[in-house]
């Protein structure tokens, strides 16, 4: 036991003290924030402006086609497909003569091809213009139409979960976000830390230091020391990320003007209602309050508890398998690729299921995938985000946890048996068939 502790210490400190770990830990959140910001910026600034000339023989939707900051419509005379670019238009839209209740082709010609999104938005605009025109033809005034259009903003759905006598506000969007994020995070860490375990084992084998160490400790101790040590590195990284995120958010909050901060606190105390007669809460204060309020509707202790459990369980389950593969690789690291395939396949497949489950947490496939330990760490996290016991009953959660524990005990046992043979075997190409023979033969 003392020796396993030594191995864990070495695996842990040699990685945490490494510059790469520090860089990854502190740059990763910045990188993610930067990526989000960059893609948001690009989606705003990268939009091209289209100046569309419309040829409308009926003159009939001229008043209903609305300009946006991306698209502007004009109705010039004497324009055709040959001269629209010379006159400074990017596209030309040719409307057919209009007949009621009949589908017709509206032709758009451009020098530069148009993206699907933009095409759809133009098509929507034309259709709603036609709709408006028909309503106006039927005698409805423009002012009435405008007031009807704005009515689509009136209803805001607030969902509540019934829990015995009390009910709790629920938020499907938030649940989806949490489920997706935690599923993705577990998926990524399985890969990153699993591969780290595999590389570590390969390094020891190809360096031939494994033989020196195995004359001092049992192969199983060496393997477990490595798995636990690297797992601890992963947990440390998460912890640092959480601390980093919390401190960054509070720093960001500190930069807000003091009156907005004050308004947010008042909103919190009064449960979202501004006391009448007092100052009106500014728009940004309400936004911040709403974000905080939404985030608070999630059951964070449960989610974080489950996340830690499924991270550790899933990690132990997969890391053992990665260690077994690492122990069978010879000098050629490419051998690892083909042997890794049966491990990465279920991982990728689970990730796909997780994406489905975040939208629909109660299908039979979601249930089974959250019980089977190959996929449960990711899929169950996606379901737990929707709430226990409303989306996942307690027995399902318990069953999933028990199978995962049994699962990683099994993979660790299996890998231990493959590892102790593989780590000392050189110059022989190992297949999965041979590995199973090592695992299940009696010796």
């Amino acid at each position, binding site marked *: 036991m003392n020796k396993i502790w030594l191995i864990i210490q*070495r695996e842990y400190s*040699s990685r945490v003290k490494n510059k790469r770990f520090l860089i990854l830990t502190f740059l990763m959140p910045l990188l993610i924030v930067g990526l989000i910001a960059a893609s948001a910026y690009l989606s705003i600034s990268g939009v091209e402006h289209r100046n569309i000339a419309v040829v409308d023989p009926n003159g009939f939707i001229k008043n209903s086609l609305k300009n946006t900051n991306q698209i502007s419509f004009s109705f010039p005379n004497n324009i055709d497909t040959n001269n629209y670019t010379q006159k400074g238009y990017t596209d030309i839209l040719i409307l057919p003569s209009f007949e009621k209740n009949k589908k017709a082709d509206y032709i758009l010609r451009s020098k530069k091809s148009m993206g699907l999104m933009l095409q759809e938005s133009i098509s929507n605009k034309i259709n709603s213009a036609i709709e408006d025109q028909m309503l106006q033809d039927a005698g409805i005034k423009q002012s009435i139409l405008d007031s009807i259009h704005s009515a689509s903003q009136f209803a805001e759905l607030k969902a509540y979960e019934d829990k015995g006598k009390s009910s709790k506000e629920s938020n499907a969007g938030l649940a989806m976000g949490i489920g997706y994020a935690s599923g993705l995070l577990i998926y990524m860490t399985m890969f990153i830390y699993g591969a780290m375990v595999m590389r570590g084992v390969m390094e020891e084998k*190809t*360096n*031939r*230091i*494994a*033989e020196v160490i195995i*004359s001092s400790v049992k192969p199983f101790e060496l393997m477990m020391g490595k798995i636990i040590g690297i797992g601890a590195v992963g947990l440390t990284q998460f912890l640092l990320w959480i601390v980093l995120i919390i401190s960054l958010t509070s720093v960001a909050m500190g930069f807000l003007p003091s009156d907005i901060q004050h308004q947010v606190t008042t909103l919190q105390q009064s449960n979202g209602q501004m006391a009448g007669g007092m100052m009106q809460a500014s728009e940004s204060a309400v936004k911040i309050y709403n974000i905080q309020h939404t985030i608070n509707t999630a059951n964070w202790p449960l989610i974080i508890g489950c996340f830690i459990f499924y991270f550790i369980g899933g990690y132990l389950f997969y890391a053992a398998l990665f260690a077994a593969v690492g122990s069978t690789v010879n000098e050629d690291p490419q051998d690892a690729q083909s042997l890794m395939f049966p491990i990465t396949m279920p991982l990728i497949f689970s990730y796909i299921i997780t994406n489905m489950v975040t939208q629909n947490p109660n299908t039979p496939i979601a249930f089974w995938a959250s019980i089977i330990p190959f996929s449960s760490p990711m899929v169950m996290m996606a379901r737990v985000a929707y709430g226990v016991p409303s989306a996942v009953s307690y027995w399902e959660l318990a069953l999933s946890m028990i199978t995962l524990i049994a699962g990683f005990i099994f993979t660790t046992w299996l890998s231990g048996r493959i590892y102790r043979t593989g780590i000392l075997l050189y110059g022989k190409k190992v297949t999965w068939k041979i590995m199973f023979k090592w695992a299940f033969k009696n*010796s």
Partner: protein
Amino acid sequence: MDALLSLSNLKKYYATQKAVDDISFDIKRGSIFGLLGPNGAGKTTLLRMITGIFYPDGGSIILDGQPFNPIEDIQKIGYMPEERGLYKKMKIGEQALYLAQLKGLSKAEATEKIKYWFKKFEMETWWNKKVEDLSKGMSQKLQFVITVLHEPKLIILDEPFSGLDPLNANLIKEEIYNLAKKGATIIFSTHRMEQVEEICDHIVLMNLGKKILDGSVTDIKQQFKENSFVIQTDQSVGIKENAIFNTMSHIENKIIVKINPGYQSNDVLKYLLQENINIVSYNELLPSLNDIFIHLVENTHATARAFQNVQN
């Protein structure tokens, strides 16, 4: 006989071959023991059983008077494998400390011993360097230090001199003698015969998983001698055919003869004296271990071993 290690009927079978097939021998306390054999003879497998890396399929190992217990006895053994390796990115001092602690030394004890050995081998400046900065010979020295650091009773060295220059090889050799003098028992596995002849007291020769030779170096040489003698004369002479010996080679003043059955070495001298030949020196010609090795291993198809089937 006070044996530190005694193996009896040790066996290890793999699916395609009998790697170690019923081997027994004893190793005297404080001796330097040579384990010889061609490539693939089963030496490494045998050593791995002695170090507790492999469990034998049959037979027993007695270490220091007690049945070998891989977990308890780790501290009594220092093993330097043939294909040696170290963590490339780890600092040398930390690496030595880590491996010594795995052997069961406390941190303080280990630090003290590492400092002693590093000083002895003039390696003090290496502490904060990484293994990847060392030459092959330097890392060999480091590996040797790590092997003997915890003062094991049994030191197993698999090809310890490969890659060392003569100066460093001598340094290690001296240290091996020193350790043996202090009571450590050393198993020395190699196929470099001249080193064995120089260093070892006792040898075992393995081939195809079996022991084919066991004894002290002098005894074995006696056993394989062919009654040959080297005669030096003061000047080149002619030697006639005779009943006592055959002339094997005759180059200027040096004659090698093989005595025919029924005659003694003195009969050769008598004959030469009768012939009035001036003898400068007269020595028995003992075979080198190299000759014995080649003689025994040749024609056993050792290289075809991998295709042999096991019937059990």
